[in-house]
């Protein structure tokens, strides 16, 4: 099960204002991989991942999820590739936690008992079990982020894509979200994190893909990517080794959420 892009080109605007966001991207993400998509602001990161589930359609090239072109079966792509957006507050569709997480499975027409089971499992996976009836409005930023992740998990995706998941979160909230991502990855879900700041996710990543000018500029394991990334204006940890041990000892038992 993979996400594959071939010769992806995407332009936005028209006429004089036309700009190329993606300029020939070939990429294959394997199942269960933890991939960080990095790059400076405006490098095309968000544009790229939104092709994975057909939220944007390429001007040239093709995206396949598990071998099926996304344009042919967007529902399959959107169930296999779950997506968590940058500002989760604007992505909730209901006032309470349970009703929001149920939205995706309801769209798939599942039975009510299947939906309840998925909602429960998804909320458990982000340490929000038993809080179905709470108002989203009353939750902290980190809790909202985790509910947004649960909303994507309720589709039982093979890959979970998160766009800048740490923006605006304080340190404990970042830690708790990171802990959840680590656990999901350990249980076999592919994780794709889009970010301009690698410091949080660096120790977890199997692979770093960096974009520059709409092309893949770096595609390597994190250890090998550091210097090239620094040249692209991507923030990397000052001392790689130290952070690795920090996170390794911080999870899963001392998961602070």
């Amino acid at each position, binding site marked *: 099960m993979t996400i594959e892009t071939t010769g992806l080109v995407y332009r936005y605007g028209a006429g004089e204002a036309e700009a190329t966001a993606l300029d020939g991207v070939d990429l294959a993400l394997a199942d269960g991989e933890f991939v960080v998509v990095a790059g400076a602001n405006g490098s095309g990161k968000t544009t790229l991942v*939104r092709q994975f*589930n057909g*939220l944007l359609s390429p001007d040239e090239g093709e995206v396949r999820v598990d071998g099926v072109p996304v344009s042919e079966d967007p*529902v399959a792509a*959107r*169930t296999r590739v*779950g*997506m968590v*957006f940058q*500002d989760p*507050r*604007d*992505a*909730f*569709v*209901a*006032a*309470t936690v349970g*009703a*929001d997480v149920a*939205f*995706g*499975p*309801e*769209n*798939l*027409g*599942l*039975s*009510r008992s299947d*939906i309840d089971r998925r909602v429960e499992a998804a909320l458990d996976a982000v340490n929000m079990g038993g809080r179905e009836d709470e108002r*989203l*409005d009353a939750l902290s930023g980190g809790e909202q982020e985790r509910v947004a992740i649960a*909303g*994507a998990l309720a*589709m039982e995706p093979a890959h979970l894509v998160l766009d800048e998941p740490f923006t605006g979160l304080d340190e404990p909230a970042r830690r708790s979200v990171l802990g959840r991502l680590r656990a999901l990855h350990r249980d076999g879900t592919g994780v794709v994190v889009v970010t301009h700041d690698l410091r949080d996710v660096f120790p977890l990543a199997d692979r770093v893909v960096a974009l520059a000018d709409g092309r893949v500029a770096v595609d390597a394991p994190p250890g090998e990517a550091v210097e090239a990334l620094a040249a692209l204006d991507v923030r990397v940890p000052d001392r790689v080794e130290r952070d690795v041990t920090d996170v390794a000892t911080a999870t899963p038992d001392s998961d602070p959420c």
Partner: protein
Amino acid sequence: MLSYVPGDSLAHRLDPRTKLFVQVAFVLAAFAHTTVPGLAVLTVVALGCLALAGGSVRRTLWSYRYFLPFLLAGPLLEALTWGVPWVVLGDAVDPLLASYRVLLVFLVSGAYVRSTPVRDSRAAIQRLVPGKPGRLLGVGLSLVFRFLPVLKRDLFASRDAMRARLGEERPVHERMRIVATAGLNRAFGRADRLSVALRARCFAWNPTLPDLRFSRADAPAGTVGLLLVVWALV
């Protein structure tokens, strides 16, 4: 403020569709029988509804206080006459009864609001309105419930920001323009992000419908509604 209060009263346990039906039936009966005996019967029904929902008359009417001046205005203005004797109390009787029936309707809708969570109301609409319109209304309602507090905060923030910059000295239509523009921009920006999120979660025309089940308690309540409708028609 009038709003849903969690509880286990008889009204809380009724299916929202039954409660909507009783409300509509009550309005029909109240408009068909705006007479002293008719309204006397309906007073008992309205007080019963409110009691079954655990609500209080005083607090329910207080939440409708902005509407009350209009209830008074009708009878008062009708009683006035251009010329001697200036005031004809007899002219005020019909409008007074009309206002009283609205007061009773307030009590019944107060009972509904108090005993029905918005989730149930939304489910009722999605089940009562078939097909695509029902889907659009159901999701639309869910979004309105979700975003009202968010947009209220947006508006308060822009009003406060305007005040902080001595905006109080500007003419009223200018201030309205500034606050409304800010609110509109925030709302549309959020809507555009929201629509992408809806698509990512397979927003579909044919979802699993919300769970609603009639219970034994719905039978007597439904009968009351039915009786009201029949009474309204005879």
